[in-house]
């Protein structure tokens, strides 16, 4: 019994706290390109100071937040009707529809992002189609733009939006909507006053599940974005592998974590509140 309780703690210590301490230790050190690993341990805060003074990092931060926020909003606007439709579908059809939402996970994430490259490239499938049908003689190229990054993030994280929304909409007692109609609410008013507030926990959960990983996303901006698309995950990668500056990369990682603690706390508070209400 005691062992079972201890297990999650051991897990967290070994796979979270220890690596975190390691990364923090590196972040407080200084870059030493000639030694292996290229770190000289110490207690310097200059890596952190650089993150807040250098325009590159501040810009990367802001642009990460902006891209993540827009992608989250678009995913919400797309995911809500999807989740609603699945929750209102005949019970025997729901497993199939949910399956379709999860189906992309059966293919590697990387391969799916490569597939988008094939679709969006200058001579990609989309442009070939546009030229072939004469819809546009000289379509621009989406690949390499921020549009492509947004599209990729929305595509990749949409299931994380749909599933919690579905869970909260499926729980919604339909007799509440009948009661609203009975009391004189038109369908849209019933949606605004009953469905929407009662699905708020799902909205918050879905948005955070998309927003949190999207802020630190690296693969999508690297493969679909261009040189001008700045995202903090990509900056981290560059510091680590291109510049071999481990301490600075670690400082970026720590800051990313600290900044995401806010939304995570928000998420948990919302969950606790909705539990209290029941």
């Amino acid at each position: 019994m005691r062992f079972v309780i201890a297990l999650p703690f051991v897990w967290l210590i070994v796979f979270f706290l220890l690596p975190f301490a390691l990364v923090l230790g590196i972040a407080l050190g200084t870059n030493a390109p000639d030694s292996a690993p290229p770190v000289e341990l110490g207690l310097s805060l200059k890596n952190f100071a650089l993150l807040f003074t250098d325009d590159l990092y501040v810009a990367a931060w802001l642009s990460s937040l902006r891209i993540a926020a827009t992608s989250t909003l678009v995913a919400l606007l797309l995911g809500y009707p999807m989740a609603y439709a699945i929750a209102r579908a005949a019970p025997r059809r729901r497993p199939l529809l949910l399956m379709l939402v999860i189906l992309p996970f059966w293919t590697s994430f990387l391969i799916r992002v490569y597939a988008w490259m094939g679709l969006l490239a200058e001579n990609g499938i989309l442009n070939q189609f546009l030229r072939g049908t004469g819809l546009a003689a000289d379509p621009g190229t989406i690949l390499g733009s921020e549009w492509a990054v947004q599209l990729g993030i929305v595509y990749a994280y949409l299931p994380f939006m749909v599933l919690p929304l579905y869970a909260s909409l499926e729980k919604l007692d339909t007799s509440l909507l009948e009661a609203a109609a009975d009391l004189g609410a038109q369908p849209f008013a019933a949606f605004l006053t009953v469905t929407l507030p009662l699905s708020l926990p799902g909205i918050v959960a879905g948005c955070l599940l998309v927003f949190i990983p999207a802020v630190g996303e690296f693969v999508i901006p690297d493969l679909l974005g261009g040189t001008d698309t700045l995202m903090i995950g990509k900056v981290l990668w560059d510091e680590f592998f291109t510049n071999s500056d481990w301490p600075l990369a670690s400082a970026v990682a720590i800051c990313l974590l600290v900044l995401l603690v806010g939304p995570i706390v928000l998420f948990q508070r919302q969950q606790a509140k909705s539990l209290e209400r029941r």
Partner: protein
Amino acid sequence: MQRGLISNTPIVRIEGVTKRFGAITAVDTVDLAIERGELFALLGSSGCGKTTLLRLLAGFETPDAGRLVIDGQDMTGVPPHRRPINMMFQSYALFPHMNVAENVGYGLRREGLPKPEIVTRVAEALEQVRLSDYAARRPAQLSGGQRQRVALARALVKRPKLLLLDEPLAALDRKLREGTRFELVRLHEELGLTFVMVTHDQEEAMSMASRLAVMDLGRVTQVGTPHEVYERPRSRFVADFIGIANILPLEDGRRWLALRPEKIALCAAPPDTAHAVAGRIVDVVYEGDRSLYRVATDDGRVLLVSTANVARTKETFRRGQSVWLGWAADAGHELDE
């Protein structure tokens, strides 16, 4: 019952209404007229179509055939939010994210009434159901009985022409049910509204309703006052469903007689009645206020007989005892079918 009578036309006319779900005909060509100010009960076992009929009235279902006229207006295709009807749901369907006052005021806010008027009417409605002190509570913080009253206030505050009640007492425990029964009848009399209630509990329907419709297999088998339905059931089904009845074949073997257990006298000696038969007691059920006996008669039938336990000490009959049964010429009721 005469209160609230404005005109002689019925407030609800259901004309040949049919509703099918796939292969199942839930409501089968039902004709029914409900008068103004009635407390009308739709009574039947589960699956008889009573709830579907109520949902057709509320507008949650649309009929496959027939017409619904409410207060002189054809409501057949009118959506629920435009009907002058409110419903108390079996589950109460209270909005969990709103407090009691917000729940009760919901329908008034949808009408776009000015705020001060909403506040007064909500307070009035909460007063009516004695929940004034609970206005700020959430439904989750209320007991079952309190929730039921919130649901009632939320429906009544709209001053509907017709109040529908779906199994209003089913979710309450037995003790609370008794009190709430009187409470509903009191409100009905005070407000002079028309109530239509669905119930599977014949005792509930008998004690509350001014008239009731017995339903079976999607059809209305009999409509009448509780007294009419109990004393003059039309069919074997009604006789059997409402209370207890002995059903005896008549001489020609094609017609039947319903004989209520309390209409039969149980005696030790041959009684001086139009009908008398000897028998032996096979079972005794003591229920406090009355006792039920199963008597095997010498002509080969088993009849149920009940006696009221009026006196505290009274000669009682025991199992195995030989007895006589007697009933008057008009004690039984001949069934049409």
